[in-house]
């Protein structure tokens, strides 16, 4: 793979659910050290797009390449390069934190020498919870375990699906610090979030998806500058300064979805 080649390359994917065109010719790419936000209202096609990247869903057309590996042709290699934090926590509630970490290390072929798991748990301040079953952890603790597992194999690409939902401000801050460190290490991050403040603060680039199509892609500042004078954006802007949320609502509409 060439040094400047994108870590994630999504080209012209289409996904249909019966007659419904859920994802329509979506294309974007993410480079090393970049945090890319995929924003959209409920039902816009975010989850379907993410599912296609994760290999959970096969698009009707188009390609997804992760670190140069096509997810359809070479799923094991593509998935070995990708860490995923799903929206809902979904680990075996009967396993302890230590056992879950060992399971996922095994699935990625990562050796777990003595002290390795304990070191990881110390890093996320969960060393006292290593013997606790996953189901006994609080939401914030589960989220921290989930991020450790998503990064256990040091992936080139990290997918985060609404990672801060349900977290208290302390946990949220800690999570963003960790994500920032991941970015600095040269990894790429694709995240979805409903928090426009967060997206504006942490994303290098943002794509807004609606009705299955990407309707805008740019840096947060670029999106605001490009659309600040759009009458749809001005109509929904509530302050003197146009925000990313104004742009988002202006472009995707004010009506409630899903």
């Amino acid at each position: 793979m060439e040094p400047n080649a994108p870590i994630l390359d999504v080209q012209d994917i289409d996904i249909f659910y019966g007659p419904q065109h859920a994802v329509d010719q979506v294309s974007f790419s993410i480079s090393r050290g970049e945090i890319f936000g995929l924003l959209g209202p409920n039902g816009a096609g975010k989850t379907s797009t993410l599912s296609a990247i994760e290999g959970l869903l096969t698009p009707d057309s188009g390609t997804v390449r992760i670190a140069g590996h096509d997810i359809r042709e070479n799923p094991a290699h593509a998935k070995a390069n990708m860490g995923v934090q799903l929206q809902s926590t979904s680990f075996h509630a009967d396993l302890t934190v230590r056992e879950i970490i060992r399971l996922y290390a095994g699935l990625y072929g990562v050796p777990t020498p003595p002290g390795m798991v304990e070191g990881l748990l110390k890093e996320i301040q969960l060393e006292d919870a290593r013997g606790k079953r996953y189901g006994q952890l609080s939401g914030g603790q589960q989220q921290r375990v989930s991020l450790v597992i998503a990064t256990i194999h040091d992936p080139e690409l990290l997918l985060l699906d609404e990672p801060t939902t349900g977290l208290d401000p302390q946990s949220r801050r800690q999570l963003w610090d960790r994500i920032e460190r991941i970015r600095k290490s040269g990894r790429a991050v694709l995240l979805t979030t409903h928090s426009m403040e967060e997206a504006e603060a942490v994303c290098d680039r943002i794509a807004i998806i609606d009705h299955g199509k990407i309707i805008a892609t740019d840096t947060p500042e670029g999106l605001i500058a490009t659309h600040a004078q759009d009458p749809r954006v001005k109509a929904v802007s509530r302050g003197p300064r146009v925000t990313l949320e104004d742009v988002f609502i202006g472009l995707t509409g004010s009506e409630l979805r899903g």
Partner: protein
Amino acid sequence: MESIELATPTRLQVFRALFKADLRIQWRNRRASLMTLLVPIIILVSWSGIVAMLGGPSVMSSCITIGLIAVGLMGYANSTARAREKGIFQRLRVTPAGTFEIMASRIAVQLLQMLVMAVVLFIAAYFIDHITLSVGGYVLGTFASMLCGAVFLALGLALVGLISNAETVNSIGRLVYIALVVVGAIGELGVLGSMAKNIVLWSPYGSVKVLLLASMQPSAWDMTATFALLVSAAYCIVFAAIGIRWFKWSAE
């Protein structure tokens, strides 16, 4: 664009990690596993007086058949439906683990449970009813228990394939269990008429029971046992095909 050469885990590494985790979960839920032994043990105790009339291997084959149905329909089907509903399969599928390894590891643990159950029932039958088999009967009976177990695991998979809601899988699994066991046990005695007796004989309950009975008495193997083997294999293939064809990894 060239690809990076990566250390992707081998299928064996993946299977080993999954199997260890599934085995641990099974052990943590051992109370539920013990429940699958309850009905066979009750039968062993309550049928003590008629063992001489029915024959030890016949009683044993009934007990093991009922235990296998419980593991397949209530243990395996329920745990698979619950794991799916919680999104555990989806989480595993975003790793390099293939769908084959994910399923194979769960099935391997269930087959192991069936093996343990058969051995426990052989021991319990000896102590409760003084039932003994030949060495060949024990070996073949244990092997047949796993083979027959595959029929009910496939039936459990078909159930999970056709029904997405975990609670419905639980209810329907129990209903099918009761129907197979009650109709099977009563029907094979001829109480429901000769037609019902024939239907029961070639039902999953009947064919598995005949196969187990013949395996425990290898010297008495006959054409009926061979047919039971073929019918059991056919059930296994059909149920597995239905389960695989309609199985969904997500409950949504």
